[in-house]
């Protein structure tokens, strides 16, 4: 399986990449929503999962989710917001826009893997 990690923080991208690598995902990364869309436009195989920060320059995570949901080619991609935005109304906005799941920073590796397991994205035999 393949995951796209979208965050303007290289440190956070690295943490997320480490986690999904343990679940045997191949990863690609982008520093903001626009870069992610540009990258997706060049890919013949759409990633199974996108982990998306909210507050990023150029295009934020909510805009990215909205654009992905409007694109039939990308509709199979599972979208998980990974963000410090923890207010209830923000969570509702993201889910209403089409995010499947919502993870609030800071998160532990175990908590992230649990969320992905709930989405059926943890292969049997993968690290947990």
């Amino acid at each position, binding site marked *: 399986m393949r995951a796209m990690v979208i965050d*303007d*923080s*290289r*440190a*956070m991208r*690295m*943490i997320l990449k*480490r986690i999904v690598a343990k679940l045997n995902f191949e990863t690609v990364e982008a520093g903001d929503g626009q870069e992610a869309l540009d990258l997706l436009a060049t890919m013949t195989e759409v990633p199974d999962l996108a982990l998306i920060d909210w*507050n990023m*320059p150029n295009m934020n995570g909510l805009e990215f989710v909205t654009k992905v949901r409007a694109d039939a080619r990308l509709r199979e991609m599972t979208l998980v917001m990974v*963000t*410090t*935005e*923890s*207010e209830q*109304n923000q969570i509702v906005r993201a889910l209403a826009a089409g995010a499947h799941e919502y993870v609030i*920073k*800071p*998160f*532990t*590796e175990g908590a992230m893997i649990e969320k992905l397991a709930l989405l059926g994205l943890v292969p049997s035999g993968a690290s947990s």
Partner: protein
Amino acid sequence: MSVEVLVSADDLTEMVDQVWLSYLDPEGIDPLVATGDEKQPTEVHAMVSITGSWHGHLVYASSTAAARKAAAGFLAMTVDEVGEEDVTDVLGELANIVGGNVKAMLPDGCFLSLPTVIMAPESASHHPSAHRISGLYGQWAGEPVSISMWQSVKPEAGK
């Protein structure tokens, strides 16, 4: 006029404990130990601003050694491998994470800025019309680390 809201040192401590357990000290053996020393020297700092229904700043400051140790922990590298770009990225993310959680305690309608990182002591930054409302001052592996919250006070109309 900003709404008067206090985010206490205990609130900051709770958030920072979560950050440490999540990224910097998952085994729980190397925590940030509060000392309350508000005058401890720092060498680098990162800041996020909050605007909207509340105005202020969240500042994360530390020694260079603590910043490099944090970067090494986040990026899974040794301290010797850490470069300045690594430090700025990680300090910015630390300020962003704590600032985002602080924002959740404030009235609805607040917005968080992208982080700014300054490779200079916290005293090099000035926050006009702002006063510190809470702070966590401590040591991490013998190095100073602080997280403080500043509230901007808007002048009343006509003054």
